């Protein structure tokens, strides 16, 4: 394959990253999606929008998040010098809020008065409920019944923030079904409702705008690394479900050819079983939730259920830009199992005094494999995109501990 001039020029005007992406939505939604694109283009060119974003990101979210040298982890693994990009320190405890601030400011510009969102682990739901509270807009969060059960603390948080959490009982009762239900709500209430999509997927322009709002992670990390080490990192590692934290870290580095990039899918109980969420490793391209991307599906095109111990990675698809980066070979997509993630979760807690979320524990599981094979002057950034408070009950259960 010939090298591209840039890996950062997508999507094209139809929302395509190579053959992926697009706008596969019902006609009812189409005018709204075109309107959203128009407003986003205008907002990007408006210094007042950027100033407002910056204000909320700094004073409300707490950015920039630190780039932290994980010294004990580095010593323990005995190879690459490991940095954590600490987006788990953001207000609400994960990277999700970066995007929510951007989208709710867009919603206001568009005159929308009601907010909806889907959530898997509950992090995006909490972040959405948070900004809805801050901007005084009513908010409905769709969440699969199974996810509600395994993420009780976040469900309660959303309710405290004034959101209505609607349990989704159809299909596999997880993230994909929550997204179906949110789309149904949207199509019904299209006149006043803004759908804050949490991951870098869905119909164009969502994958682009979520990526742009999350790119603050990579932009900061680049500047921070240059300040600390005087040069770019040698590698980046991030976990990937839909892929918003990963694309946020990766995007500003895509055109730096010496930076190796690794994304870690959830292998659940193993890629050789049927219980995983590795849409790139085991899926084929198809169309779901507004975009063409790699999907876990059977030969009849029916979507199959994903599985991961981490609710945030439990989705049978992946953002279209990742599908494209996979096909062109710019990013190396690997996977980590539930048990590898659990190991990493515990190791990070003990060595660094940081309890990571189960999602970035997948990234860390790969760091644990990769770092020892690399020289000590290799600079590695792992996106620590969420904290593990929400997961402690689940992890206790997985480890057989009664609380």
């Amino acid at each position, binding site marked *: 394959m010939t090298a591209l001039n840039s890996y950062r020029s997508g999507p094209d005007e*139809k929302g395509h990253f190579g053959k992926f992406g*697009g*706008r*596969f*939505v*019902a*006609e*009812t*939604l*189409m*005018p*709204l999606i075109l309107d959203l694109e128009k407003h986003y283009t205008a907002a990007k060119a408006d210094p007042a929008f950027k100033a407002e974003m910056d204000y909320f990101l700094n004073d409300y979210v707490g950015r920039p998040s630190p780039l932290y040298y994980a010294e004990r982890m580095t010593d323990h693994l005995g190879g690459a010098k490991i940095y954590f990009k600490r987006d788990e320190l953001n207000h609400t405890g994960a990277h999700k809020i970066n995007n929510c601030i951007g989208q709710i400011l867009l919603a206001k510009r568009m005159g929308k008065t009601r907010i909806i969102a889907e959530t898997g682990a509950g992090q995006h739901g909490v972040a959405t409920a948070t900004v809805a509270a801050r901007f005084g807009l009513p908010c409905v969060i769709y969440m699969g019944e199974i996810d509600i059960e395994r993420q009780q603390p976040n469900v309660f948080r959303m309710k405290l923030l004034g959101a209505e959490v609607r349990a989704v009982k*159809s*299909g596999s009762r997880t993230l*994909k*079904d929550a*997204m*179906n239900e949110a*789309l*149904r709500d949207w*199509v*019904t*209430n*299209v*006149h006043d409702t803004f759908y804050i999509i949490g991951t870098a997927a869905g119909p164009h322009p969502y994958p682009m705008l979520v990526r742009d709002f999350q790119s603050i992670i990579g932009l900061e990390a680049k500047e921070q690394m240059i300040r600390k080490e005087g040069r770019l990192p040698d590698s980046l590692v991030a976990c990937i479900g839909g892929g918003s934290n990963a694309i946020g870290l990766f995007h500003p580095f895509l055109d730096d050819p010496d930076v190796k990039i690794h994304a870690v899918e959830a292998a659940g109980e193993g890629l050789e079983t049927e219980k995983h969420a590795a849409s790139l490793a085991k899926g*084929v391209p*198809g*169309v*779901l*939730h*507004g975009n063409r991307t790699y*999907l876990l*599906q059977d*030969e*009849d*095109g*029916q*979507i*199959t259920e994903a599985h991961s111990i981490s609710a945030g990675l439990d989705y049978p698809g992946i953002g279209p830009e990742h599908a494209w980066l996979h096909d062109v070979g710019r990013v190396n997509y690997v996977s980590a199992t539930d048990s590898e993630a659990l190991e990493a979760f515990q190791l990070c807690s003990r060595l660094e005094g940081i309890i990571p979320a189960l999602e970035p524990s997948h990234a860390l599981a790969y760091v644990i494999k990769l770092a020892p094979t690399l020289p000590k002057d290799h600079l590695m950034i792992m996106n620590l995109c969420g904290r593990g408070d929400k997961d402690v009950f689940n992890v206790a259960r997985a480890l057989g501990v009664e609380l």
Partner: protein
Amino acid sequence: MSRIEKRFAALKTAGRAGLVTFITAGDPDHDTCARLLAQLPAAGADVIELGMPFSDPMADGPSIEAAGLRALANGASMKTTLKLVRDFRKQDDNTPIVLMGYFNPISAYGVDRFLADAKTAGVDGLIVVDLPPEEDDELCIPAVKAGIHFIRLATPTTDAARLPTVLQNTSGFLYYVSVAGTTGAAAADPVAVGKSVALIKQHTKIPVAVGFGIRDGQRAAAIAKVADAAVVGTALVERIAEAQMRKIDPAEHVLELVRELSAAVRGVAKAAA
């Protein structure tokens, strides 16, 4: 002329609106569905919409979603859907059949192979909910080339500026979704529907069918007054679930409602062309 064009021309001559009935292929099981399908024209269905089951029907309400899941649980697939059409055509060469659903099962089957097999089976048109005009290259253009109508949905959010985009490459008929929402949503006011249909008719000569919220004869008659056809889906599909619960024949239970709807639609006289 295609079967769809012939049928709407005949309706115009007869001076009445048509009845379009939706059922899901393979619901509740293949054999019952085949039996139901075969009897729909005699019960008064002028056009048949056959749903292609999909695991994630995000534009459908709970009733049609449940119908798809029943069918899938009983082994339905794109192959068995096409077989239903093939078998139907052995004894009925006049009633138009429109396949309705989502793009992924078609994409998985392969667009070219799907169009060839659908044409051979006797499919006349396609309604694919998640393919707006912006994605016409995917299926619409190849379908039209293969001699299959691509029937588009217009909705209350389709304004005069967008309507020409929606109408481009649309043929057979236009399906006007009378409320913003999923299938099975509340009914729209027939007066408002009449106004919307009149607006659409300023832009096109193709027939306009109206669906969403039509559950009984009275409502079907009200829509028949203002549109070229009334589409009924959720109310029929719910009869299958109901029949299963009451342990009566689902096919007969559906046909009973189709007869009522058909009588109501036929009772509305319109100026013959």
